[in-house]
């Protein structure tokens, strides 16, 4: 039986139907909360997917900052004797950011403006986070059940790595 720890730390691999399921949840969240956009970011700072008005946003940098911010928050919670702070809110002049933890694996990041309220966003983010956490948990269980297998790797990927690195970094 997979422990919570192993579920938490197993690398997840996302396929098309996973992302479609996640996107459906995020779309529903955006519709209910009237937030501008929603980002799903893993705790290491990698973007999983994003929905809504994200064109003007540097998603890579936001992902790193959100993960960094939450990592510091988690450490603060530990110092105070809390298991975690499950939500974090940053208020700006026009845009605001609401972070909600998703099953200890990821962060649901909602960016919203005066068209809605933090209460609305937080309410629907909490519901969305639960549904997302169920998806993450299922995927982690699948990965743990499949077991860890180190192999020879993909030959095509290996063959293409060198030229790609040469192209960017030089020989």
């Amino acid at each position, binding site marked *: 039986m997979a422990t919570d720890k192993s579920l938490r730390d197993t690398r997840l691999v996302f396929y098309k139907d996973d*992302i479609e399921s996640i996107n459906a949840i995020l779309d529903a969240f955006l519709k209910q909360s009237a937030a501008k956009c929603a980002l799903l970011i893993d705790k290491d700072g990698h973007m999983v997917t994003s929905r809504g008005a994200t064109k*003007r946003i540097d998603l890579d940098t936001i992902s790193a900052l959100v993960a960094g911010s939450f990592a510091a928050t988690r450490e*603060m919670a530990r110092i105070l004797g809390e298991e975690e702070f499950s939500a974090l809110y940053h208020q700006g002049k026009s845009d605001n950011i609401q972070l909600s933890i998703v099953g200890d694996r990821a962060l649901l990041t909602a960016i919203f403006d005066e068209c809605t309220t933090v209460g609305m966003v937080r309410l629907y983010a909490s519901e969305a986070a639960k549904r997302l956490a169920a998806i993450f948990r299922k995927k982690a269980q699948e990965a743990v059940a499949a077991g860890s297998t180190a192999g020879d790797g993909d030959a095509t*990927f290996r063959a293409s790595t060198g030229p790609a690195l040469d192209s960017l970094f*030089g020989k």
Partner: protein
Amino acid sequence: MVQINFAHKEIQCKIVYYGPGMSGKTTNLELVHEKTPGEARGELTSIATTGERTLYFDYMPLDLGAIAGIRTKFQLYTVPGQIYYKSTRRLVLQGVDGIVFVADSSASKLEENRESMRDLEENLREMGRTVTDLPIIVQYNKRDLPDAMSLDELQKQVNVHNFPHFEAVAPTGQGVFPTLRALAALVLESVNRSGLGATRAPRPAAAPAAPASAAPAGAPTATPAPSARPAPSIAASPPPPPRPSGPPAYAPRTAVAASAPAYAPAYAPAYGPAATAVADAPVPRPAPAPAHALAPSASPAPGVAPRPASDRYVKVSGLGNGNGSGGGKFGMIAGLTALIAAAAWFALTQLGR
């Protein structure tokens, strides 16, 4: 931890530049940012003090383009090097896939180099990992200093695990790209061997109750979550001493073969051998441009000394003046609050662009 997203056909890896204070970690990243074509990299974000010392991390995304049809992205981070930022370094190390250990070649920095290496081992240990679990490359920076130690002595004193190593003079760019290229190759090979091959196969059957009929997903060994430890208060760092100027006194030997690194590590890393040389059509990419003009910066935070307009940094003033005596727990909270505020401020400014 590498994220593999087949829906978006994307792999994302995290690389951290580690090392003692002022060894050249940030300079490495700045150089990579300057010399990499704009379409292959994102903005360089630095959460730093007014004394230009990294406070939380520097960050820059790098896009290698498509490798075998999968878009491969690296997220490059640096950590603050000063001793009192130990707990902050641990936060940045979470989920790391490869490390560049930047050592200062100066003889006066030997003990700091050794302490930083021990610190890295300890942080990884607290995260349930070891230095042999992931690709690590040592970069001996500042090879142009008059009191730079010999390579043999540095190897003996600092590189106790005999990681692959490169020599560098980061401000001039010497050794910067060869180091990063070598680490990137190791990380990608590690990713490939730990599960990419199996996961590129059609998705296994959904029912875990029938494992015999499902292709293995090739999930890697689980990495335990980091465990926390109390840490000293974050204190202000003194202004850095001026560095000697002048051209490097030698040409560093940092040649790297196209696909098989020339350093030929003396030990066999657990994560697998370097990529073998295979001739193939290169992914078409533009040649690296010369010195790349950076985008203009956003308005600095209130009370912060302005940076040159060509850089984009977050500076946080007045931090690190925590009371070291009595302030252990609350000093940490104050420091963490400042980090969160700095990260949040920069995130909010990103939204306004």
